[in-house]
């Protein structure tokens, strides 16, 4: 546990996206901040709430993302927007991404989320999102606390760093 002394820095992150690629920035920044003695709160809302499901099945899509260029045989391959509309293409891209992650020694999201829990990051799931998308509390990780915009606001007002991802 952190000693919540007066000099302890605090940070909040609003996590709004639930794809494999977008799952990385909040978890990397959150766990690193916690490792550097920052007290972290992560507020998961809208698609970001998917990242708190017990069983993660995250995917990545090249649709609308011309910046996504996968390294391949020394070259870089980007995909025209028509491609991810073909059944199976997103699945293939996801598999490619996951292989790349493993090969490069990059942590999995499961691993980073476990590190977040271990380092006492406060994890808040948005009640409204649970209702809106009919998500079941039982399907979400046990460490998730439930809250709303005001819950985040209270933490944010006391924090040195507030990020929206």
């Amino acid at each position, binding site marked *: 546990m952190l000693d919540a002394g007066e000099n302890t820095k605090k940070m909040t992150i609003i996590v709004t996206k639930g794809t494999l690629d977008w799952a990385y920035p909040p978890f990397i920044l959150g766990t690193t901040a916690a490792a550097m003695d920052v007290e972290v709160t992560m507020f998961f809302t809208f698609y970001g709430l998917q990242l708190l499901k017990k069983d993660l099945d995250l995917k990545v899509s090249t649709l609308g993302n011309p910046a996504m260029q996968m390294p391949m045989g020394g070259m870089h391959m980007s995909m025209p927007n028509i491609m991810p509309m073909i059944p199976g293409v997103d699945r293939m891209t996801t598999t490619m991404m996951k292989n790349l992650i493993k090969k490069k020694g990059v*942590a999995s999201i499961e691993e980073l989320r476990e590190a977040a829990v271990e380092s006492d990051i406060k994890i808040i799931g948005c009640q409204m999102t649970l209702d809106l998308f009919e998500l079941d509390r039982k399907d979400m990780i046990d460490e998730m606390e439930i809250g709303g915009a005001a819950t985040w606001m209270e933490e944010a007002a006391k924090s040195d760093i507030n990020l929206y991802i």
Partner: protein
Amino acid sequence: MADQVLDAKGLNCPLPILKTKKAIKGMASGQVLQVMATDPGSIADMTAFCNQTGNELMSQSNEGDVYTFEIKVS
């Protein structure tokens, strides 16, 4: 001479930092942790980590692709 050695070779950001923190947590003040990493970003990151957490970065060196850090636990 290090009290504990952490092999973070082959791991990418932020794993070397997370594992360093975990190792330091189990160590006593004044003990020395040696970390070996292959992530070139760890040079800047390990310095920043020590600056922020108050642990002392005693030395850093590299041999080939391996970067070695010695951290004295605060």
